[in-house]
């Protein structure tokens, strides 16, 4: 099963997300009294400024009829190299490595379901519900066992730095129709476009889905520093040197006066 996951071509996911995007475009037109699922965030923009210490967003919405709500948050995709250390001449050094492509940089999931979701494994995998269903694709040719070890290490490392939440969060019901959930954005999140996917699960299938984008941007002084460092590296380097040299001169001058 894992092997099929590994070999699954990239194109599949693309067409799938395009289909979801189409669904999203279609949704506003079909808004009516019997809309099965409507959800939104209280804020679509997280600004990382100099004083950024993480942010808690509120996701809220209404649903028609029974069923469970699942909220899945994906960060922008990254390529990740996982490495294993082995003892070489007495010290531990990196030896084997696997490159995973298009791994979500951030992942969290929340649900109203207290005891497991009423969904078949294929649906859980398709919507990447739960840590074990996050799609970790690699072009490297490795055995299934090696894949399992390395894939597990990606999840473990991401959890250790707080970018993947180990347990499913709680989506609270308010009466029959309303629901709300908090989405925690920690301080070390990467910038980019996030997707917040809200799913309505009923009778063992996905009855309705809605995807809401969330933008995480650097703003203010910090953003300028980051942009300059990457766009004008030479200028940035010279500026860094001058600032440090001037600071040294200033310090010397001040302490001479004291």
């Amino acid at each position, binding site marked *: 099963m894992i092997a099929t996951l590994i070999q699954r071509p990239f194109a599949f996911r693309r067409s799938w997300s395009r289909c979801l995007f189409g669904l999203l475009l279609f949704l506003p037109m079909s808004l009516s009294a019997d809309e099965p699922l409507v959800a939104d965030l209280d804020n679509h923009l997280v600004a990382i400024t100099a004083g950024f210490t993480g942010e808690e967003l509120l996701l809220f919405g209404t649903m028609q009829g029974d069923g469970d709500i699942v909220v899945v948050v994906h960060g922008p995709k990254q*390529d990740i190299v996982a490495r294993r250390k082995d003892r070489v001449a007495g010290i531990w050094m*990196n030896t084997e490595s696997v490159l995973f492509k298009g791994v979500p940089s951030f992942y969290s999931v929340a649900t109203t379901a207290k005891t497991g979701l009423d969904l078949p494994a294929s649906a859980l995998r398709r919507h990447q519900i739960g840590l074990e269903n996050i799609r970790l694709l690699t072009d490297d040719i490795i055995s299934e066992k090696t894949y399992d070890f390395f894939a597990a290490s990606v999840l473990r490392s991401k959890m250790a730095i707080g970018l993947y939440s180990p347990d499913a969060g709680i989506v609270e019901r308010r009466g029959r129709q309303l629901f709300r959930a908090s989405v925690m954005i920690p*301080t070390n999140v990467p910038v980019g476009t996030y997707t917040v996917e809200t799913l309505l699960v009923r009778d063992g299938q996905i009855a309705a889905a809605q995807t809401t984008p969330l933008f995480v941007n650097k703003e203010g002084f910090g953003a300028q520093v980051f942009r300059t460092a990457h766009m004008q590296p030479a200028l940035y380097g010279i500026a860094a040197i001058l600032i440090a040299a001037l*600071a040294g001169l200033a310090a010397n001058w001040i302490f001479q006066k004291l």
Partner: protein
Amino acid sequence: MYIYLPIAEMSVNIFLVLGMGAGVGVMSGIFGVGGGFLMTPLLIFLGVPAPVAVGTGANQIIASSVSGVLAHWRRGNVDLMMGLMLLSGGVVGSTLGVFVFKFLQTLGQIDLVIKLSYVIFLGIIGALMMAESLRSLLRSHRKTSGRMQRKLHQHNWMHGLPLKFRFRKSKLYISLLLPIGIGFLVGILTAIMGVGGGFVMVPAMIYLLGMPTNVVVGTSLFQIIFVSANATFLQATLNQTVDVVLAMLLLVGGVIGAQIGTKLGAKLKGEQLRSLLAIMVLLVSGKLLFDLVITPDDLYSIVTVGEKAGLP
């Protein structure tokens, strides 16, 4: 109070970083070394990615060296010719070092190389300083009088090298190749370890070149400014790992700490100072070696590659 570091991409407590800068500054003020060899491991311990700790360390060292060299210049403790020779080797060395750094980064071995370099160099220098300070402590107890008859320095194979030059301030007549070679090796270290190299340079100048102690620190600081400026520039252009916000915080704490340290250092005896520094250096080295030898908690680690997200 927290501040977001734009290059390290994390929030840190301002006072923690200022305090760290001040702590290392006190050490460098007391012992007359740049303190980079303590700062970089501390930053890594704080959670700053190792490459950013290294790049930013080099940047911060410029400020402390500029501040320090001016004081030494006024006292006439800078041998300009010697400094320029060390520098010419250092610029080549630190350029090579940054490329080696980039290459090792793609291999996934940069963390190991940074740590191993620390273990090896801190171990050797700590042991040398310890032996030296123990010897001089014993000597000062016995009050032997044979010291005055010693030569300025011992002559050995190094004095047979070609291209000899007379360094007036250092009272030396040696080959130009020696300071260039030492500068080159220390330059590589500067780039790979994110240190000014003072803790390698100072013993090398005293023990290998035989320079008089009073001109050693000033001359070493003089050339460190330029070598670490070169390393900063290259780290910024090749690896984008220089965080100016972090560097500013560190150097504000650092310069204040250094002034306090200089005053404290004046109250301690030279031999005591050196044995204290030796103990500290050996402890840092021992801790790093211990971490490399014991089985890590997690044999696996991950790195994000080619991340350019968030750029317009």
